[in-house]
C-alpha cells in the first residue's frame, strides 16, 4: 500500500510540483506577513547602526607617538644605526658580516629561558647594507640584511620584503644600484654571489647615502593573562653586528684621505624620535616605555666595524581597526535576526502549521531549502544595507574624533578591504541566519535554539578574556563568531611581527578563514536539518 503510494508520487508529472522560485515566494510571504517578525527584522539594522554610532562617537585614537610616514604615506618607524658615505650615480657596496649578537634581558618572573627563546624567535633585528635617500627618517631606501632565523632579506620603502637565501652571519652581502633599480646578492665566500632579489625604488635621487646599518626592535609578547586583562611583555633589544671590509665602488670622495679603512665613512643614528617634536611623549598603547637611549658610536678596528643598533625599520599599524569597530553592531543586530530565523521554523512546529506547509508542498527538503534561502537573503540585505549606512554615518564622526591619516588612512566604501568587510558582515549575518534556522529545525524548540545560537556567538567573545590566551584564541577560532574576522581591514605585513589578542578580534590572520568557520557551522547544521526533516514525522 505504502509502496504503491510511493511509486505513484514518484511518477507524478513534474508540472505538478511548484517551482522552487514559487516556493521561495511563498516562504517570503510567510516571513513578511507576521508583524512581530517584521518589527524584529527592522530592529536589526537599527541596532547595527545605533551600536556603530555609539562606538564611533565614544572612541578616541590612542596617543600618537610619531606620525612619521614612508614614501607612500604609510605610517612607519625608522630608527637605525647607519655608517654611510655618499654615492652618486650607479655603484656597488659590499661587506662581510662576521657576526650578529642580540642582547636583551627577560625578568625571571616573565619565564626566564623559555621567554628568552620566544623573544629570539619573534624579534626582527636587522643588520646589513642600505641605500637611502639621505638621513631623513621615512626617506626612500632599499636594504639587504641578515635577520636571525629568517635568512637574508631584501627590503625597500618599509612595505616591500623579499626573502633570499636562508643564510646567517657570517656571510657576504652586496647591494648594487643601477638607476632606480637595486639588486641584492649574498655570498658565503665573497667570490660566488647568489642573487637575493631586485627592487625598484622610484624617485631615488642621483646622490644617495650607502653603507652598513643595524637596528634591533623592542619585542612585544603576550604575557600571561590576569583578571580579564592581558599583559604584554616588552623586551627592548640591541643588536651588535661586526662588519668586515665595507667597500663602495666607485669609492667617491675620500674623507680625510688618511687611507684608513674607516676613511670617508660617517657614523650617524637615524632616529625618528626627532619627529615627535611637538607631540607629547606618551607611552605606547601596549604599555611600552619611552624611546631607547642612543647606542654607542661605531668602533673601527682596522677594517672591522662594530656597530650597535636599536630601533626598527618597518610599517606600523594602529591598534584599532576602525572599520571593524564601527561594524560591531553586527553582534547586536544578529540577535534580532537569530530570533526571527529560529521562529520562522519553530513556530511552524509549534502550531502544527508544518503539516499544512508540507501538505501544500510535500518536498520537505525543498521547503526547508527555500526557507533557508529566504531567511539568508533577508539577513544579507539587512546586513549589507546597515553596514553601508553605519560606515557612511560614522566616517565623519571618526574623523572629528581624531582618527586621521597617517595612522588611520582615509578609506572609501570601494576599497577592497572595506568592501570585503561590508559584504562579509552581510554574509556572516546570512550564514548565522541559516545556521539558526537549521538548528531550530533540528531542535524544534525556540527557547533552546535562540539561547544556544546567541551563547555560541556572543559568549566566546566574553569568555575569551577570562581564559589563558591560547585557550581563548582557540575558543574564538572554533565558534561561529570567528566569522566576524572577515571585517578585518588593517593591512598585515609578513615581515612585521604582531601580537594577537583574541578578544580584540584577532582570531585568524586570514579574514576568509573565520568566514569559512561560520559557513561550516551553517552547512553542517543545514545538512543535519535536511536529513532530520525528511526522516522525522512532521
Amino acid at each position, binding site marked *: 500500500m505504502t509502496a504503491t503510494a510511493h511509486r505513484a508520487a514518484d511518477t507524478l508529472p513534474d508540472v505538478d510540483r511548484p517551482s522552487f522560485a514559487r516556493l521561495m515566494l511563498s516562504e517570503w510571504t510567510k516571513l513578511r506577513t507576521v508583524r512581530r517578525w517584521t518589527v524584529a527584522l527592522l530592529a536589526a539594522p537599527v541596532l547595527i547602526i545605533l551600536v556603530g554610532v555609539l562606538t564611533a562617537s565614544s572612541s578616541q585614537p590612542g596617543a600618537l607617538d610619531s606620525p612619521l610616514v614612508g614614501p607612500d604615506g604609510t605610517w612607519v618607524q625608522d630608527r637605525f644605526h647607519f655608517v654611510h658615505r655618499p654615492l652618486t650615480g650607479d655603484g656597488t657596496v659590499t661587506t662581510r658580516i662576521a657576526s650578529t649578537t642580540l642582547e636583551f634581558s627577560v625578568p625571571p618572573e616573565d619565564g626566564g629561558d623559555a621567554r628568552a627563546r620566544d623573544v629570539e624567535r619573534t624579534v626582527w633585528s636587522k643588520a646589513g647594507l642600505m641605500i637611502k635617500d639621505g638621513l631623513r627618517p621615512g626617506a626612500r631606501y632599499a636594504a639587504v640584511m641578515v635577520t636571525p632565523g629568517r635568512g637574508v632579506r631584501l627590503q625597500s620603502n618599509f612595505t616591500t620584503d623579499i626573502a633570499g637565501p636562508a643564510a646567517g652571519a657570517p656571510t657576504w652581502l652586496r647591494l648594487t644600484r643601477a638607476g632606480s633599480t637595486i639588486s641584492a646578492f649574498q655570498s658565503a665566500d665573497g667570490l660566488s654571489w647568489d642573487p637575493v632579489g631586485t627592487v625598484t625604488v622610484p624617485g631615488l635621487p642621483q646622490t644617495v647615502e650607502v653603507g652598513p646599518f643595524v637596528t634591533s626592535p623592542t619585542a612585544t609578547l603576550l604575557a600571561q593573562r590576569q583578571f580579564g586583562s592581558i599583559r604584554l611583555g616588552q623586551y627592548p633589544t640591541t643588536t651588535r653586528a661586526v662588519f668586515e671590509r665595507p667597500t663602495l665602488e666607485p669609492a667617491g670622495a675620500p674623507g680625510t684621505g688618511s687611507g684608513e679603512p674607516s676613511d670617508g665613512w660617517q657614523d650617524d643614528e637615524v632616529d625618528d624620535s626627532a619627529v615627535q617634536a611637538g607631540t607629547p611623549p606618551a607611552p605606547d598603547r601596549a604599555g611600552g616605555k619611552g624611546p631607547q637611549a642612543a647606542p654607542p658610536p661605531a668602533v673601527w678596528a682596522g677594517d672591522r666595524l662594530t656597530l650597535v643598533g636599536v630601533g626598527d625599520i618597518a610599517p606600523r599599524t594602529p591598534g584599532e581597526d576602525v572599520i571593524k569597530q564601527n561594524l560591531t553592531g553586527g553582534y547586536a543586530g544578529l540577535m534580532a535576526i537569530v530570533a526571527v530565523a529560529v521562529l520562522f521554523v519553530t513556530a511552524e512546529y509549534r502550531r502544527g502549521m508544518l503539516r499544512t506547509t508540507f501538505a501544500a508542498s510535500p518536498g520537505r527538503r525543498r521547503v526547508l531549502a527555500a526557507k533557508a534561502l529566504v531567511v539568508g537573503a533577508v539577513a544579507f540585505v539587512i546586513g549589507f544595507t546597515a553596514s553601508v549606512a553605519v560606515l557612511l554615518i560614522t566616517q565623519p564622526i571618526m574623523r572629528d574624533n581624531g582618527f586621521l591619516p597617517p595612522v588611520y588612512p582615509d578609506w572609501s566604501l570601494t576599497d577592497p578591504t572595506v568592501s570585503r568587510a561590508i559584504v562579509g558582515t552581510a554574509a556572516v549575518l546570512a550564514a548565522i541566519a541559516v545556521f539558526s534556522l537549521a538548528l531550530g529545525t533540528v531542535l524544534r524548540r*525556540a527557547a533552546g535554539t535562540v539561547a544556544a545560537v546567541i551563547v555560541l556567538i556572543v559568549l566566546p567573545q566574553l569568555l575569551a578574556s577570562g581564559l589563558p590566551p591560547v585557550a581563548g584564541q582557540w575558543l574564538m577560532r572554533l565558534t561561529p563568531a570567528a566569522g566576524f574576522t572577515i571585517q578585518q581591514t588593517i593591512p598585515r605585513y609578513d615581515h612585521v611581527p604582531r601580537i594577537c589578542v583574541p578578544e580584540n578580534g584577532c582570531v585568524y590572520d586570514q579574514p576568509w578563514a573565520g568566514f569559512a568557520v561560520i559557513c561550516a557551522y551553517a552547512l553542517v547544521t543545514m545538512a543535519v536539518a535536511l536529513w532530520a526533516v525528511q526522516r522525522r514525522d512532521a
Partner: protein
Amino acid sequence: MSAVHAIHAEWTKLRTVASTPWLLFAAVAVTVGISAMVTAGASSRTCPTPSICLDDLPRLGLTGAQYGQIFVVVLAVLVMSEEYTTRSITMSLAAVPRRWRLYLSKAAILTGVVVVVGSLGVLGALLAVRRLLPGTALSAANSDQSLSLADGPTLRAGYGTVLYLALVALLSYGVAAILRDTAGSIATMLLLLYVAPILTSIITDPAWLKRIEQFSPMLAGLKIQATTALDTLVIGPWQGLGVLALWAAGALLAGLLSLQLRDV
C-alpha cells in the same frame, strides 16, 4: 490564604515541566565550571606586583555567574512566555482571575528557586576555586585575600551574586510578560545583558565607558562582586546592584500592567 494556594500551584507548574531541572542544573554547573576554569587559567607568574594584578580573588572566583545567568534568563522567560505560547494562560487566569496575584505568585516562586540555585552555584564556585587555588600560580599571591565566607567583602560578593541572579530572573520575567514570546524575550534579554560588555571592550572614551558601566544591567549589577579597590569603581557595589534592581522593577511593573490591561 489564596495567595498561598496560587504560589503552591505555581510551584507545581514549575517543577512538573521537564526543562526546569535541566536549566537549574545547567545554571549551577556552568557557574561552578566556568569559575573554576577561569581561576585555573589565571596566572600571576608574570605579574610584577601581585597586589596590583590580583586585586580581586572573590570576583574571579564568581566569574561563572556571568555565564550561568543565561540559564536563569531562559528559565525566567519560559515561566511566563510558555503560558502564552501554549495558551495555558487561559487556564491559569480561569483558576486565578486576579491577575496581579497570578503574576506575583509566579515571580515569588521564580525568585525562590533562583535564590536556592544561585546559592548552590555561588557556594559550589567558591568551594571549587578554594580547592583549585593551591595548584595554581595564584596561590602565592593571594595571601591577603580569602575566599572564606567569614570574610565580610567575600560574603557580600557571595550573597550579592545570588541577589544579582534573582534580579536578572525578575527582569527576564518582566520582559517575557511584555513580549509574550519565548524567542523574542530570550533574544531581548541576552542583547540587554551582553551587548554592554562587548561595547566596553571596544570603546575607548572614558566618559562613555563610565556611562555604559553605570547603566548596563549586567555591568552595574556585577559590581556587587567587587571586594577590593572599591573607590576605583565607577559605581559602588550596592549602587550597581540598585541599578539592576531598577531595571528589574521597571520590567516587572510594565509586565504587570501589560497583563492587567491587555486581553490574553
